[in-house]
């Protein structure tokens, strides 16, 4: 089970969502994709996308305007 990290700090719409999807497409079932970013709307929309694709959102946390989201494929 690999852990894939995606850094979207400073990126604007729609990059965090698109980069999350790219990473999830490349990941194998069971892999965990961890995205970090600062774009406010993406913090709620990335988990929305994950749930729409029936994937587990393991964690959403935020510190000083920088969020981290972990999704299992």
């Amino acid at each position, binding site marked *: 089970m690999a852990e894939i990290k995606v850094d979207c700090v*400073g*990126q*604007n*719409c*729609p*990059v965090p*969502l*698109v980069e*999350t*999807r*790219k990473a999830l*497409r490349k990941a194998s079932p069971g892999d965990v994709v961890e995205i970090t970013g600062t774009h406010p709307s993406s913090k709620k929309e990335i988990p*929305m*996308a994950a749930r*729409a*694709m029936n994937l587990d959102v393991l964690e959403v946390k935020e510190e000083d305007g920088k969020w981290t989201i972990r999704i299992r494929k």
Partner: protein
Amino acid sequence: MAEKATIVVESGDFDKLYSALIIGNGALAMGMEVSMFFTFFGLLRLKKGQLDKGPLSRMHFGGLGKWMIKRRMKKANAVSLERMLADFVELGGRIMACDMTMEIMGVTKDDLRADLISDYCAVGSYIQEARESTITLFI
């Protein structure tokens, strides 16, 4: 089967193409299948070197408005049309070119960026995709 979105890109305006590609990429990112049909002035943006050459739909001001918007987009770290189109294709989005527009506007396949185009087609293909789509837009 995944849900589907179809977008007709009729406008060649810079801002409208930007919106169309953001929506297309967003739908792909959220797990949908997406087809974009490029027709009339939209199709002209698929000619080589023409993607970001469209005017603003409002406040273009002979290019000054567009220059200002592009500068502000850069400051906001908004990505280019070129990057969004590449992402769209990478995520499996389909780009369809209207063959009647090609005939009317005198555009040949050689003029277009054939590497990005999945199909050259007409209204029947659009309807066939749109009838099984949950989102359809005309931009």
